[in-house]
C-alpha cells in the first residue's frame, strides 16, 4: 500500500469506472469458486455454485435472508467448511488454509469491534498477530487512523463511539492487513439513512484508492446497485443472475430478478413472429390483443408463451394520444395516485382490467395535480423498453 496516496483520500465522489475483465475470455479470475456446496443437516444452503471474481472488483452478492449468501461469505473467510467444491484465490486453493492464514479479511455485520480494547488496539491487533516490528505497526496504525479519520479517537473504547465510528474501526482493522480480498457482510445495514449514503461513497472511494477486491453481501438492492461493479442475485443457494447493476436492472433474466429490483409491470403474451436478424420479436398481449415489438435474442420462437416486463418509469402518461414510431400504446383510467414531490406514481387500470404502475417525473412546476383520479389517460412506452422473459 502506498501510504502517500492513501492518506489523501479522494474526496470527490469519482465514479469507479471499472474495466470489464469478465467479458475478456483471457482474463484470469482472482477468486474462482467451483462447484461449491454447503449442507446443514438436510438443508442445502449453497448448492453447487460457480463464480469468478476479478481483481479490483467491488462484487456484490444480493439475496433475501436465508438465500445462502452469508454461508458463501463464511466459506470464503474460512469459518465454514464446504461439503464440496473449491475456492481458489490468486491461484491458491483455500481448502486446507484455516481462517487465520487466509489473505482475506472481513468486516462483520455487527462490526465485532473488541469491546475491551481501544480503537488503536483494535486496529493494531492483526498486525501484532503477524509479529511485525513495533515501529512499523505504529506508523501503519497512524496512517490508517488518518485514512479513516479516527486519529482523535485513538484512545477511546468502542462504547464511547457512535455506530458510524465503530464501522470505520471495523473497516480499518480489516484493511490494515492489506488483504487480497475484503469481505463485507451487510456493511451499511446498521447505519441510519444519511450516514449510509455518505458511507457508501466513502467505501467506493476507499476501494478505488486501495485497489483491494471487495466482496459485499447484502439484502438491500439499492446498496448493491450503487456500490458494485457486478451483482450476483442469489436465491435458494443458487445464483439467478450475475451481471452489472444496469444489466440486472434493465435486462433481468426472469421474474424473480425483475421483481427483486424495484417495481415492474408484467404482461403475459404470445410470440407472433421473430426477426432473427434485427433480434426483435412481435408479441400479442394475452387479454387486450395489443401487439408490441421487443428486443430479444434468438432464444424465442413463434407461439412461445412469454412475459413482457416494463419498468414504471419507462412509461409516459398523457391525456392526448401520443404519436411516434415503435411505441406501445394502451388506454386506461387513473385509479390511484401518489404525489412524492419530485415524481408521482399512478396506478392505471387498463382496458383489460389490469393495473399498470407508472412513475412520472414532475418536470413542470404546478401547484395542481397534472392528473386526477378517474382521468382517462394514454400510456405509452418505447418498444425498446419491453423486456421479454421466458419465465
Amino acid at each position, binding site marked *: 500500500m502506498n501510504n502517500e496516496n492513501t492518506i489523501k483520500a479522494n474526496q470527490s465522489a469519482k465514479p469507479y469506472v471499472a474495466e470489464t475483465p469478465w467479458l475478456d475470455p483471457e482474463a484470469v479470475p482472482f477468486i474462482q469458486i467451483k462447484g461449491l456446496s454447503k449442507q446443514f443437516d438436510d438443508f442445502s444452503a449453497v448448492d453447487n455454485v460457480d463464480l469468478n471474481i476479478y481483481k479490483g472488483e467491488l462484487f456484490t452478492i444480493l439475496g433475501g435472508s436465508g438465500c445462502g449468501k452469508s454461508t458463501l461469505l463464511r466459506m470464503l*473467510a474460512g469459518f465454514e467448511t464446504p461439503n464440496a467444491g473449491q475456492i481458489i484465490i490468486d491461484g491458491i486453493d483455500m481448502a486446507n488454509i484455516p481462517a487465520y492464514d487466509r489473505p482475506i479479511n472481513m468486516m462483520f455485520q455487527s462490526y465485532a469491534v*473488541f469491546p475491551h480494547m481501544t480503537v488503536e488496539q483494535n486496529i493494531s491487533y492483526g498486525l501484532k498477530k503477524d509479529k511485525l516490528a513495533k515501529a512499523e505497526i505504529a506508523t501503519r496504525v497512524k496512517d490508517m487512523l488518518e485514512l479513516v479519520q479516527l486519529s482523535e479517537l485513538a484512545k477511546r473504547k468502542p462504547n464511547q463511539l457512535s455506530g458510524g465510528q465503530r464501522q470505520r474501526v471495523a473497516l480499518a482493522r480489516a484493511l490494515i492487513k492489506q488483504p487480497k480480498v475484503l469481505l463485507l457482510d451487510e456493511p451499511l445495514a446498521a447505519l441510519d439513512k444519511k450516514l449510509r449514503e455518505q458511507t457508501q461513497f466513502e467505501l467506493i472511494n476507499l476501494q478505488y484508492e486501495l485497489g483491494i477486491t471487495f466482496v459485499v453481501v447484502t439484502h438491500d438492492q439499492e446498496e448493491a446497485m450503487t456500490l458494485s461493479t457486478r451483482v450476483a442475485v442469489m436465491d435458494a443457494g443458487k445464483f439467478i443472475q450475475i451481471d452489472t447493476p444496469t444489466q440486472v436492472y434493465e435486462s433481468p433474466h426472469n421474474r424473480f430478478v425483475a421483481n427483486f429490483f424495484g417495481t415492474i409491470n408484467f404482461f403475459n403474451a404470445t410470440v407472433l413472429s421473430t426477426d432473427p436478424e434485427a433480434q426483435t420479436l412481435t408479441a400479442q398481449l394475452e387479454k387486450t390483443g395489443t401487439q408490441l415489438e421487443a428486443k430479444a435474442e434468438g432464444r424465442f420462437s413463434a407461439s412461445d408463451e412469454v412475459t413482457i416486463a416494463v419498468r414504471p418509469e419507462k412509461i409516459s402518461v398523457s391525456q392526448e394520444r401520443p404519436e411516434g414510431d415503435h411505441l406501445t400504446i394502451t388506454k386506461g383510467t387513473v385509479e390511484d395516485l401518489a404525489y412524492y414531490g419530485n415524481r408521482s406514481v399512478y396506478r392505471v387500470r387498463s382496458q383489460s382490467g389490469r393495473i399498470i404502475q407508472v412513475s412520472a417525473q414532475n418536470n413542470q412546476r404546478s401547484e395542481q395535480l397534472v392528473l386526477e383520479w378517474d382521468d382517462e389517460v394514454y400510456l405509452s412506452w418505447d418498444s425498446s423498453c419491453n423486456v421479454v422473459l421466458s419465465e
Partner: protein
Amino acid sequence: MQKSSRFVFSALCFGFAFLYIPILVLIAFSFNQSAITSVWGGFSLRWYTALFNNEQIIEAALLSLKIAATSATFATILGTMAGLALTQIGRYRGRLIFTGLIAAPLVMPEVITGLSLLLMFVSLQELIGWPLSRGAGTITIAHITFSMAYVAVIVQSRLSSMDQSLQEAAMDLGGRPTQVAFDITLPLIAPSMLSGWLLAFTLSLDDLVIASFTSGAGASTLPMVIFSKIKLGVTPDINALATLIIGTVSIGIMIASWVMFRQSKRN
C-alpha cells in the same frame, strides 16, 4: 398518587425490617457487656477478645478460608472449561442434556449431594485405598463438585450473550485459536469468572451439610464448629463471630456487584 407512594414506602420499610432487624439485633448483641444474650449490659468488645483467644474457632476459621479459596479456584477453572464446552463447540448431539446435567447440582438437596459424596469416598477408599482419611481434602473436593456448577452457569450465560463474531473477527485477523482464547475470550469472561469465584468462595464458607458428610475426625470447618457450639447453648462470642462474617460477606458482595456494574457499563 401521594397515598400510593406512602403505601409503597411503608411496604418497602416493612420488607427491609423483616429482612434486616434480626441481623441488626445480632450485631448489637455482639457488643453486649452482659453474658446473658437477651439482656443489654452496656457496650463492650469483650466477646471479640474472647473470640480471638478461642483457638478452636480461629483454627476452624482458617481451615474454612483455606478450603473456600482452594475449592473456589478449582471450581472456577473447571466451571469455566465446562461453560466454554457448552457454548463454544458448535452444535453437537446431546448438548441440551449436558446443559441440563451441569445445572442439576444447583437444585439437588445438599443432604443428597453430601451423602452421595460420602458414599463415593468410602467406596473409593475400599477400591483403591484413596482417600486414606476424610478431612480437609475430601471437603475441598466436595465443595469443588457443587460450586463448579454455579461457575459454569455464570460463565455460560456470559458466553452465550457474547457476540460470537468477536472470536471469528480475531481469528480472521490472524489469531490462532489459543491466541483468540487469551486475547478475546478470557478478557471478556474474566468478570464473570471473578463473580463465579466469589460465589463459589461464599458457598464453601457457608456450607455445613456437605462438609459434615465428607469431613473426618480431624477437620472441622467454621460452620461445623458454630453448629456444635450452638447445640450447647448460644454464647455471645458466636454473635461476635457472626458479625465478622456478615462484614466479610458484605464486602465480598460489594466487590462482586462493583465488578458486575463495571462490566455492564462497558457493554
